[in-house]
């Protein structure tokens, strides 16, 4: 067992444990804190894969901005600990959790079955097919920022635009919704 | 009644709305302030200048002949708003021959400096000009008892002040000459 392995198990435990505790904690603020722990654990796993850019983005966007926003909302609305009256919700969320876990397992199994993804590592070479990705330019495929930028603005231009557009739609939707509510409130 | 004039506030110019020129002015002010002479008094080494009419710690004074002036009339004790003064009246000591015509003298005179508010009423009310608030401003101690000035301490702080009247001497002289009052 090398140092990297030990670190991997440590951070995997951190990520999974954080997620577990997040779901189990009654009060929203500790839940948010455990979620941050989980996110940082995932970022550390990215670092172990030498994908520094992804790791930093994970921390910058999720732990640094999104979770701060969550905490801000939790504190602003002063959400207290969860009460015991939501038993029906518990049932529904239990079913939903079971369903999605089953779905995840099935999809994962299918992927492993169909491509032999884990066993011989063919999948990796498929994903990181250098020639297709860099379109014949002299860039080397790597985890560096330049590689990401090149990929996003050439091969994955359309998905990038679409996801940007989706976010814009969500933003406009939020503005419309909040505007309406405030007008009713003032009248 | 004068007519009320409403002054319209001018809209801020663009440079004013960026705050930046104002910030620069403010920065200039604080920067020039850095090189102005300091006003700090390095206290234990440098003492402040005490003006003449300063009201410091109340003290008892003696006349230029080294005699006690207080006659234990207890007016100061009576007038003292925080009741900081306590006088135990007594008679003039036997050995002070030239003061026997004075009826009383304080046996003990205590001023509790934890109560004293430095109002100066005692000095104002004293008919003998025996109690003065002088320039002593720093009094400190480790216990409550230490902060009560007894008679010895009060005379030590007070010292001797010039006397313009020698009231009791004049009275004795008049008595000796046979025309009292």
């Amino acid at each position, binding site marked *: 067992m090398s140092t990297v392995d030990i670190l991997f198990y440590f951070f995997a435990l951190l990520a999974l444990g954080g997620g577990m505790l997040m779901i189990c904690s009654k009060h929203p603020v500790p839940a948010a804190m455990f979620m941050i722990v989980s996110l940082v654990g995932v970022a550390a796993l990215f670092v172990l894969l030498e994908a520094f850019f992804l790791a930093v983005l994970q921390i910058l966007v999720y732990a*640094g901005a999104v979770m*701060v926003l969550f905490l*801000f909302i939790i*504190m602003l609305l002063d959400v207290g600990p969860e009460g015991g009256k939501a038993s029906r919700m518990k049932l529904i969320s239990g079913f939903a959790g079971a369903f999605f876990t089953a779905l995840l397992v099935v999809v994962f199994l299918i992927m492993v079955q169909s491509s032999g993804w884990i066993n011989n590592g063919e999948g990796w070479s498929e994903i990181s097919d250098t020639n297709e990705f860099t379109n014949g330019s002299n860039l080397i495929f790597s985890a560096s920022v330049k590689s990401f930028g090149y990929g996003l603005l050439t091969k994955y231009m359309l998905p990038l635009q679409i996801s940007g557009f989706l976010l814009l739609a969500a933003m406009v939707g939020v503005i419309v919704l909040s505007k309406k509510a405030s007008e009713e409130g003032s009248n | 009644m004068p007519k009320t004039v409403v002054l319209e506030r001018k809209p801020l110019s663009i440079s004013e709305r960026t705050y930046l020129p104002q*910030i620069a002015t403010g920065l200039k002010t604080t*920067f020039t302030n850095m090189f102005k002479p300091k006003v700090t008094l*390095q206290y234990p080494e440098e003492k402040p200048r005490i003006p003449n009419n300063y009201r410091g710690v109340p003290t008892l004074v003696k006349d230029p002949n080294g005699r006690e002036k207080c006659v234990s009339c207890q007016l100061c004790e009576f007038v003292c708003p925080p009741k900081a003064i306590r006088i135990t009246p007594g008679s003039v000591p036997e050995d002070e021959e030239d003061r026997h015509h004075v009826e009383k003298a304080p046996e003990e005179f205590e001023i509790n400096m934890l109560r004293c508010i430095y109002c100066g009423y005692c000095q104002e009310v004293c008919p003998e000009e025996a109690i003065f608030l002088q320039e002593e401003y720093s009094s400190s101690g480790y216990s409550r008892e230490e902060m009560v000035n007894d008679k010895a301490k009060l005379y030590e702080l007070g010292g001797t002040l010039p006397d313009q009247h020698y009231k009791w001497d004049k009275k004795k002289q008049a008595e000796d000459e046979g025309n009292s009052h």
Partner: protein
Amino acid sequence: MIDFETIQVVAIKLTFAFLMVGAVMTMAGYSVLAERKVSAWMQGRVGPNRTVLPLVGSVPVIGRFLQGLGIFQPLADGLKFLFKEEIVPGHVNKLYYYLAPIVALVPALTTMTVLPFGEFTNADGNFVPLILADLDIGILFILAVSSLGVYGIVLAGWSSNSKYPFLGGIRSSAQMISYELAMGLSLLPVFLWVSEPGSSVSSLSLVEIVRAQNSSTWLLLIQPVSALIFLIALFAETNRLPFDMPESETDLVGGFHTEYGSFKFGIFFVAEYAHIVIGSAIFTLLFLGGWNFLPWLDNPWPSSWIGTLIGTVWFLTKTIGLIFFFIWIRWTLPRFRYDQVMNLGWTKLLPLALANLVFYILLVTWLDQSNFNLP
């Protein structure tokens, strides 16, 4: 499993890390002193000038001079924090109450790992930067880790279980979100300008930024708007006046650290000043040319180790100048109101940063297309 060479490398790295932490902490301690001294001078006072060490103080002229400057004051302050009674209010959430100062300090100290402070030429003639970890995404790393610092404040505010710290925590989180965006956007034109098209190195690294400013102009002169936005956002991120919303001692008593005392408060204090030191260093690297000499001038010092030393000292001088600027601003400007802070962040700085970005995109494209040589 672990051979001698690994141990050697780890030992060297650890030594450097300790040196770096020591340097930054010392600078943070003396920033506190500088704050007290400069504020005193600006208000016509003298500032701390009493503390003295027994032996040094008795040196004829120098001892008195150092005492007058208050050089020994940080020592006394640190000892005071250590020996004070540890008071924990009964109404706090113990775990998070103890966790908060640590969470505040760790990001402040972590950012220094990617902070270069000089460079030297090795035997092969290559430039080697003096840095703990030369990450090619250094600036992103700094942004990411320093954004975690807000959790210390939010946690402190929440776990104190008291209204003023709580308000401080809320304000802090809102402020952090508002200014991080403008900060990130203001940095994009800088990297756009620095990374030449076709170069193989990815230039999100601070070392590359400094090299790009070598014997050309400082980026402050090319991109004044970016520098201004970055500086304002830096003030907000370090919770300095005029943006010290979470602390604002006049309306929130002491904000997030109202319920804190003794050494835990000391850690918050040090964290704040460590943020200032590192923020100043980053601004120096990005916009003031790092360890390079003045704009348009070659470095006048030789490229041997002496040059490295002078360059590092020159970098530190600029950083200290910027720390002074932080302090100077604090004792000049009043605090913004909370809604003014939000207004400034979202409706002024963010659009300005966007416009700035678009302008430089067009400019860089035009320069690129018309085959001008970049200065």
